C-alpha cells in the first residue's frame, strides 16, 4: 500500500520579474508502508522542494501529493507525520521540554503521554540532562537532536527527514542511523534526503536519484545487483542528466 504518493508534481518558483525556476518536473513516486526511502541528488535538485510539498509548506504548481490517500492540504494528515527540516531553527528562549509539550499538544496527545514520551525521547537523543537549558545555548548538533525528538513525539506513522545528518558528529550520525533502523523495525515509513551515500545505502530499501527536478532513477537496494558502488551510480546518473561537466 502506498503511504506517500506524488502524482505528476511540478513546482515552479518565481525568482524575479518574468524569471522562473522549475524545481520539480512532473514528479511521480509511490513510497510504500514500512519502507525506508532515500532521496539522493545534488544541491538544488529539488529534494527539499518535494519534502516541503508533502508538509504543505509550499504548494505544487501542478499535480498533487497525498499521504495515506489524503491530500497533504488537509491539516489532519500531519497528525500522522513527523518532520525534521534541514538546518532546523527553534524558539531561542524555550527549552526542549516546552517545545515537546507544544508538539505533543498540537498533535492531540494527553499530558501524561507527553511527559512519558518527552523523557524517553530526550534520553534517546542524549539531551535529558540538558533539558532545562534554552535552545539558544545549544550547539548545532544538539538543535538537530531536538528536531528529531520533535519529529517523533507523537509516534508518527510517516517520518520525513530532510538532511538529518547535517551538523552531526560521527556519534550523532550513528545515533540517527540507529534511530532510523529502530523506526524501520517498528514498521514506520521513512522518507529522507541525504548527501551521505554510505548512510543512505545502509538504511534504505529504495533510493531515488533526483537531478534538476527530474526523478532519473529509482534503485531497489534489495533486489538490484550492483556491479559498481552507489557513488558511481549516482555520479553516472548526474552526468547523464548533464549536471556534471567532465
Amino acid at each position, binding site marked *: 500500500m502506498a503511504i506517500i504518493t506524488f502524482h505528476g508534481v511540478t513546482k515552479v518558483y518565481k525568482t524575479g520579474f518574468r524569471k522562473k525556476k522549475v524545481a520539480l518536473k512532473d514528479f511521480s513516486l509511490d513510497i510504500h508502508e514500512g519502507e525506508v526511502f532515500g532521496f539522493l541528488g545534488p544541491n538544488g535538485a529539488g529534494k527539499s522542494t518535494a519534502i516541503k510539498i508533502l508538509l504543505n509548506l509550499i*504548494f505544487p504548481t501542478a499535480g498533487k501529493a497525498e499521504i495515506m490517500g489524503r491530500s497533504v492540504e488537509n*491539516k489532519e494528515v500531519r497528525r500522522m507525520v513527523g518532520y525534521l527540516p534541514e538546518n*532546523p531553527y527553534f524558539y531561542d*528562549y524555550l527549552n526542549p521540554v*516546552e517545545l515537546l509539550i507544544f508538539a505533543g499538544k498540537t498533535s492531540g496527545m494527553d499530558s501524561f503521554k507527553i511527559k512519558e514520551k518527552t523523557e524517553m525521547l530526550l534520553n534517546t537523543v542524549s539531551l535529558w540532562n540538558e533539558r532545562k537549558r534554552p535552545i539558544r545555548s545549544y550547539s548545532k548538533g544538539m538543535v538537530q537532536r531536538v528536531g528529531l525528538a520533535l519529529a517523533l513525539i507523537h509516534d508518527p506513522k510517516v517520518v520525513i527527514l530532510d538532511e538529518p545528518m547535517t551538523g552531526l558528529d560521527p556519534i550523532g550520525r550513528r545515533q540517527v542511523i540507529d534511530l532510523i533502523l529502530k523506526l524501520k523495525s517498528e514498521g514506520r515509513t521513512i522518507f529522507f534526503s541525504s548527501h551521505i551515500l554510505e548512510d543512505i545505502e545502509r538504511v534504505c530499501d529504495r533510493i531515488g536519484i533526483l537531478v534538476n527536478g527530474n526523478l532519473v532513477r529509482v534503485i531497489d537496494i534489495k533486489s538490484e545487483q550492483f556491479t559498481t558502488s552507489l557513488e558511481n551510480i549516482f555520479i553516472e546518473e548526474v552526468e547523464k542528466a548533464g549536471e556534471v561537466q567532465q
Partner: protein
Amino acid sequence: MTAVWQVALITFKEGIKNRVIFGIFIIALLLFAATTVVITLFMRDIVKVAVDLSLSTVSFAGLLTLLFIGVNLFGKDLDKRTIYMVISRPVSRSQYLIGKFSGIVLLTFVVVAFLGILSAAPVILSKRFYYYPEARFDWWIFFIAIVYIFIKLVIVSSVITLFASFTSNSFIALVLSLVVYFIAQSTESVRFLIASQVERIEVSPILSYMVDIAYYVFPNMSAFDLKMQAAHGLKIGPDYFIWTILYAIFYIIATLAIGTLAFRRREFP
C-alpha cells in the same frame, strides 16, 4: 482551539523570556522615577502632570514591546523558518496567525498590567505630597485609561499581524506598522483642523478627501487616548465605551480577516 492556544502559549513564553523585555521594564521604571522628580518642578496641576506622564510611560513601554518583541516574534518565525516547526503539525495557517496574534496580545496584557500597577506610584506620591483640594482625580477613570491603552495596543498588534502576513521580512513589517501608528495617532486632529478651518488654511478638496480616506482606513488611535480625561477626572459616558469598544472589535476582526486571507496561500520555501 487547542492549536491556537498552544501557538499563543509558545509565542507568549518566547516573548516574556526575551531579554529585551527587561530593558523595556527598566526604561519604564526610570521614566516613572523621572516623573516623580519632574512633578516637583510644577507649581500647579501636579496630579494632572503625574497622571499624564505615568499613562504615557505605560503606552510607550507597550508600544516598544510590540515593535521590538511583537514584530520580532513574527519575524524570526518567517526569516529563520521556525514556522516549519508549527506548520508541519496539524496547525493551519489561519490558526498559526491567530495564535501568534493572541500570544502577542497576552504578552502586551502582562506588560500593561504590570506597568499599569506601577504607574499608580507617581500618582499616589503626587497626591500625598502635593495635593491641591481643587484637583479632580478619579482612580476609576485612571484604570479605564489603562484599559484603553491596552485596547489601542491590541489594535497595533492586529496591524503588525496583518503586515507580517504578507511582507517578506520583519523590518518591512516594523516600518509599515510604525507608519500606520503615527498616521493613526494624528488623522483625527488633522481632520478636525481641516473641518474647523480655525487657521483659515486653504485646503484643496483632494487633500481633504484623502484625509477623510485615511481617517476611515487607519485606526483612530486618539479615540483610545484617555490621558486628558484621567488627568482632569472627567467622566466618560456609556456611549463612548460602547462605540469605541465596538470600533476596536470591528477593526481588529477586519484586520485579522484580511491577514488570514493573505496568509492562507503564503508559501515557505
